[in-house]
């Protein structure tokens, strides 16, 4: 038996799908899903029709075929007989090379400029503001093209290094800066067993070991400081840990330098960094450095003055205040935008195509696309590559953000 006060029991009616907020969201989602499926099947249907009309199909077999074009700057072995896949890998490595170099340079320049913008020196302060504003407000493509043009126009050509009264000369007889690119001495290992990449692997292994060694030293110093209040002086141990094994390894493996020399009309030997690489890296770094400088400035300004004063009243010296109080807090503000600037550098490095640097957009999205006519496949691969890079960088950023987040209680 039901009481009179019981609410009336309603069955499910169709109109509730539109009018009842409990069920309406299902209607909307269903409609959205239908619309999405309809849109995709429409596009897919068109794609199939167009491909059939053009006698094409979607296939990635072309990646295994010989590329048939040359790539003038490469980090790994590549000939024109290598496959398109190999060409893409060369392009990817070139992209990463530009991105990493430019990130490093941009951070260095950006931090210096950002700190100088806070300087009390009026002239320096204004000069840095001018730099930041000019570079931020002009398209990066224009900067890349300008720097490329300036580079080719101002630096001497290799032929000007010839003859006894040459117009140009090498710096210390080691470095040659020409309009075609920079020629730098290249370290090589003469000991038979260390030739090629083995020597470099040894060096990298030693560096990693030194890193952990140095960390152990600093941890031990901290432990002693905790226990006794005195921090032992560690800088010479650290220095020794970093450099002694390295020097020893270089001696054992017979380090010598391959110095670039003028042969005929061009330089031979050494490391050759093409002008397009240098121009692109440099342009990306100084463009992004302007943004990074603003982030750094904002980060330092975000730390309230009370923090500095409190640290001073505890008796810390100015450099300790900077390293123990201000910087750790400022970094929390600076690093997230900094990482998204790194992301921008990586994405902007695709502008390499404008100066003819063979990054992945130039090989896979440029010549491979034009030669094979496989537009859909190549562009999809290209997007997938950039997407993987972006998503992994943002994953790293999220981990970092969570680790430095203010612990609220």
């Amino acid at each position, binding site marked *: 038996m039901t009481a009179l006060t019981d609410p009336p029991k309603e069955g499910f009616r169709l109109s509730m799908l*539109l009018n009842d907020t409990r069920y309406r*969201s299902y209607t*909307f*989602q269903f409609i*959205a*899903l239908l619309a*999405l499926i309809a849109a995709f099947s429409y*596009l897919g249907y*068109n*794609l199939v*029709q*167009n*491909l059939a*009309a053009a006698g094409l199909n979607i296939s990635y077999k072309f990646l295994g075929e010989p590329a048939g074009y040359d790539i003038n700057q490469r980090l790994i072995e590549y000939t024109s007989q290598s496959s398109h896949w190999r060409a893409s890998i060369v392009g990817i490595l070139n992209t990463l090379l530009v991105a990493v170099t430019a990130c490093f340079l941009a951070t260095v320049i950006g931090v210096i400029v950002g700190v*100088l913008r806070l*300087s*009390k*020196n*009026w*002239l*320096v302060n204004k*000069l840095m503001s001018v730099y930041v*504003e*000019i570079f*931020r*407000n*002009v*398209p*990066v*493509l*224009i900067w890349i*093209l*300008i720097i490329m*043009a*300036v580079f080719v*126009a101002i630096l001497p050509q290799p032929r000007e290094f010839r003859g006894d009264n040459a117009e140009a000369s090498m710096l210390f007889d080691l470095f040659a800066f020409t309009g075609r690119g920079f020629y730098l001495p290249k370290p090589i290992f003469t000991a038979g067993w260390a030739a090629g990449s083995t020597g470099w692997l040894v060096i990298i292994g030693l560096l990693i070991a030194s890193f952990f060694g140095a960390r152990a030293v600093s941890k031990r110093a901290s432990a002693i400081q905790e226990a006794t209040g005195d921090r032992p002086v560690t800088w010479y141990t650290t220095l020794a840990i970093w450099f002694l094994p390295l020097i020893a390894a270089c001696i054992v493996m017979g380090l010598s330098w391959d110095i670039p020399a003028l042969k005929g009309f061009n330089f031979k030997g050494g490391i050759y960094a093409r002008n397009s690489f240098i121009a692109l890296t440099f342009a990306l770094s100084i463009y992004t450095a302007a943004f990074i400088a603003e982030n750094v400035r904002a980060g330092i300004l975000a730390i309230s003055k009370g923090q500095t004063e409190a640290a001073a009243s505890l008796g810390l010296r100015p450099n300790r205040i900077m390293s123990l109080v201000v910087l750790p807090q400022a970094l929390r503000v600076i690093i997230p935008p900094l990482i998204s600037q790194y992301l921008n550098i990586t*994405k*902007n490095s*695709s*502008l390499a*195509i*404008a100066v003819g640097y063979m990054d992945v*957009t130039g090989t896979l*999205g440029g010549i491979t*696309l034009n030669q094979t006519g496989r*537009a*859909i496949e190549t*562009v999809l691969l*290209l*997007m997938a590559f*950039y*997407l993987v890079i*972006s*998503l992994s960088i943002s994953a790293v950023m999220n981990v970092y953000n969570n680790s430095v987040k203010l612990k609220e209680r």
Partner: protein
Amino acid sequence: MSDNNLSFVRTEMLPEQAPPLTASGPLKWLKENLFDGVFNSILTIVALYFVWQIVTGAFPWFWNGVWTTSSLAECREVLNGATGGCFSVLTERWNQLMFGFKYPVTEYWRPTIAFLLLFVAAAPVLFFKLPRKLLIFTAVYPFIAFWLIWGGTILVPIMIAVGFVAGYMVFTRLEAQSFAMGLGGAVIAAVLIWSLQGYLTRPLSGVLALDPVPSRDMGGFMLNFILGVVCVSLSLPLGIVLALGRQSSMPIIKWICVVFIEFIRGVPLITLLFVANVVLAYFLPPGTNFDLILRVIIMITMFSSAYIAEVIRGGLAALPKGQYEAADSLGLDYAQSMRLIILPQALKISIPGIVNVAVGLFKDTTLVSVISMFDLVGMIRGPILASTAWNGVYWELWGAAILLFFPICYGISQYSQWLERQLATGHR
């Protein structure tokens, strides 16, 4: 004279002495701001040297500049070995830099007027203190600009506007029943009018007609401007929808928006332009062939809408939760609470961010030169630097490009900072 008068305490004040020379006036300023300590002095001297180098390098270049020759060779003859800029490339090719090399010369007045009217149209949006009635002109402006730049009969933009008006009227009628119904009705009414407008405009194509200019003839700085303005205005509503979708509690809609936004933000604009250039045609019905500029507008709009959506999402997240709850407690439904309570505040917070996206987008419009469209950068790299007359005039042309972009972008970012100060109504 008696001894009583002798006093050893001074009875009158001494006149104030001028402060030492180094503690006042310009010298003090110099000491405090430029030569405060050894390190600062070194910095100042280095900076001064740097400025001196630039000034002495650039001054003769400007001063001896040649403005009236018709080729680089002639200019070098006039200069006769002296340092000087060949600015005559700018005077000779100015129209090409502005309008591209295909836009009919006799019609240059049309984009110029459209450009000038843009300021009138943008003013009430940018400055809240101007009379609100000016917004009517802002609403009419897109149709005027379309008519001026692309030409053709004025009936086409009028009919498109009529479609919008009809949609709005249907919306106000049906809104009382439900927001979704009003929106659906409005879309149907507008699409109906747009699909029928051809029957009216085709026979009457001579009414107030300007010479039609196809969009592949657009070029130069005008193209950058068209792309920038069109894409920002189109991506704003799209960005709002995406941001709301991402905040939505409905999982399917939320994930569609998240995937779209993250995908677009993860790839460089160039790859999207490649899509517009070579891939998009595969996904359209066979036989359709709309021109490159439209495809590029679609892709750039998608690109910037993802970024604007993220900015607006920040604005939505910054609103205190009480605002949402207050709207609910008033009994407003989702559409009403968004339109009346949430969005006005969230958009206000996000305006500076949106302006920054707009500046970035305007700069990024130069990327279309990579897919061989002739915007400002494309014109400089292509027809001008490749011509025999001006092969090798880098500094002057790129300097002009900087001078065209810098004031606009700098002005907009200064505006956004000013606006941020205006909007800072928080308690500080």
